[in-house]
């Protein structure tokens, strides 16, 4: 009886089963061949990112499928975090892949703002009444006395996708907990070399937070906390080197130690400071 039931059932359903079987076989062959013959060589970074993506080609990111997005995100890391299905985890993974590719080594690269002047420390000639972005302001003379320091309109803040930059009383300040080292801010800043990507060999990096090329007298006139180029620090440690009227730190040579601390102590304007996650306040 049961057997008869099964036979009827079998009789009525085997065509469907066979159809599916045929479809399965057919498509698996096609896919296997495709996989073999049409594999296109890709940039290893793109491939890595592709692997990190869900691969369901949903198009939510605004690109034509996951591989397109992978390609785009490698070229322009600012569009990170557009994969809705993947969510935060995927973004983090991509950020990891990309930041590794920036530094080229295991040392993370993070930006340092080479200025420490807040609004009250600076000299102003007049009021700026134009478009409130650094790039616009920088195109004009006399927005502030110092032509090399942070303008404080926050172009870097606007460029940061991770909300890691705050403008505190006219000075861009980086939150190193949130920073991923994507380099967007250093590209957005109109002041050359003001925000520099630095290999963070230590969680707190020492820095000379000024890039003023004015001679000492003018620097002093424009800013209370600028580097006046007195060269005292260069005598303490060879990692400190002189540039046009200011001292700078060669970050590759930098090793924390006694002499650096002395240099910091001896600096007359206190422009040598720590930056980074564990920077002492």
């Amino acid at each position, binding site marked *: 009886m049961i057997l008869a039931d099964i036979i009827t059932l079998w009789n009525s359903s085997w065509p469907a089963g066979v159809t599916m079987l045929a479809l399965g076989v057919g498509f698996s062959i096609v896919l296997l061949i495709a996989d073999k013959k049409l594999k296109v060589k890709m940039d290893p970074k793109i491939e890595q990112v592709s692997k990190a993506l869900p691969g369901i080609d949903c198009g939510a990111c605004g690109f034509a499928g996951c591989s397109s997005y992978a390609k785009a995100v490698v070229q322009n890391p600012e569009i990170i975090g557009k994969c809705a299905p993947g969510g935060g985890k995927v973004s983090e993974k991509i950020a990891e892949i990309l930041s590794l590719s920036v530094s080229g080594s295991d040392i993370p690269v993070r930006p340092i703002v080479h200025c420490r002047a807040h609004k009250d420390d600076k000299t102003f000639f007049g009021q700026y009444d134009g478009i409130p972005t650094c790039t616009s302001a920088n195109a*004009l003379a006399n927005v502030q006395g110092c032509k090399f320091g942070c303008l404080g309109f926050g172009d870097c803040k606007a460029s940061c996708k991770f909300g890691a930059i705050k403008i505190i009383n006219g000075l861009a300040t980086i939150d190193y907990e949130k920073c991923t080292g994507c380099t967007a801010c250093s590209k957005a800043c109109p002041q050359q070399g003001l925000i520099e990507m630095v290999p963070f060999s230590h969680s707190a990096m020492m820095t000379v937070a000024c890039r003023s090329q*004015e*001679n000492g007298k003018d620097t002093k006139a424009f800013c209370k906390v600028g580097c006046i180029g007195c060269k005292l620090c260069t005598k303490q440690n060879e990692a400190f080197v002189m540039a046009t009227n200011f001292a700078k730190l060669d970050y590759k040579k930098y090793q924390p130690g006694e002499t650096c601390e002395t240099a910091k102590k001896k600096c007359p304007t206190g422009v040598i400071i720590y930056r980074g996650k564990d920077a002492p306040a």
Partner: protein
Amino acid sequence: MLSQHIGAICKPVVNKRDHITTGQLIGNAEAFVSAPIYSPVNGTVKDIALQSHPVLGRAEAIIIESDEDNSPKQPCPDKFSADFDPRRFLPEQIFDAVRKAGIVGMGGAGFPTSVKIKANPNSPINTIIINGCECEPFITCDYRIMLEWTVQILTGVSLIGRVLNCDNIYIAIEDNKPDAVAAFKQAIQKMPSISGIKVVAVKTKYPQGDERQLIKSIINKNVPTGGIPPMINVLVANVATAAAIAEAVVLDNPLTHRVVTISGGGIKNPGNFYAPVGTSVSYLIELAGGLNNDAVKIILGGPMMGFAIADLSTPITKTGGAITILTEKEIGPAKRGQTPCIRCGRCIEVCPMNLNPTKIAHAAKHNLLETAEEYYMSACIDCGCCTYTCPANIELSGFIKTGKILVARQKKLMPK
């Protein structure tokens, strides 16, 4: 001030504490697109350091302390006479004199004139336009010299014609200055040796003084976007430049002085001054009677394209023909603040370059540089008409300028 023009920046050739005399070479550069700088006064080099610059903010400058016994140089139009014959000079001679005298375009751009008049066999100049249109409202320096230095200018004009071997020359003067037109017509008749110079009155409208607009109104040709006038075989030179050429070639005087208009509601005694290049703005303001109490803006240049400054120790340069000092009333409704763009299209109507300012400005504002470029941002000549006319008070040209800076930076960052 060592950055006075477009092109390679000069290197100082004097040292701190050197004593120098008027007309002594103080800055020079080897590059072709450059012009030397001469001291306008007798004095001592006080320092070579960064100094306020109207465009660059801070630039390297030679700061000269003038001697007390300095007798100011006087303009010399009377040294030119109507019977001047440009054929006295060989083209090479003229070229060398211009190059040596450090003459740059005195209308505003500051392109070294020697480069401009260097004959290029690939695109020979067949039309020369002498620009007697004030580049902006408020400025009258060109007008003054056209009236007072007419013969000197014509001498310079004929020299340019000589060096480029071209006698199709127009002198363009705005139609609200009939006396200048008459003066030139009269002077031309009196000068037998020069031929082919036509005086044209053009419509008074901003930005008529821009070379592209001028070429368009006089010979009805468009300068290709992103190109320069020589591409359509035209050369445009300012009247002041022509005067300087005359002085350099005939009298062998280097360019050390220029006429500066000081005007606007914020100054007590507006007027035109013959000032040494490098004089500080504060000195000139003092000369013009000082600031009124309601002065709020000090502009190097005119109100449309000039640079607002705040550091009055900024010196004037070879290109800076004016200082405009505006009061709040003159500035207009800017203080009312921006309202959203209502796409009324007035900026498109006024744009002399037939661009779409609102589109470009909004794209630039939101960092969509590609879009901005698609709408030909780089063709913008920064005339400021769009901002002037915008009922919503949007700083269109400001955004466009910023966009252009961003594009330039992007190109620098990603060389391809």
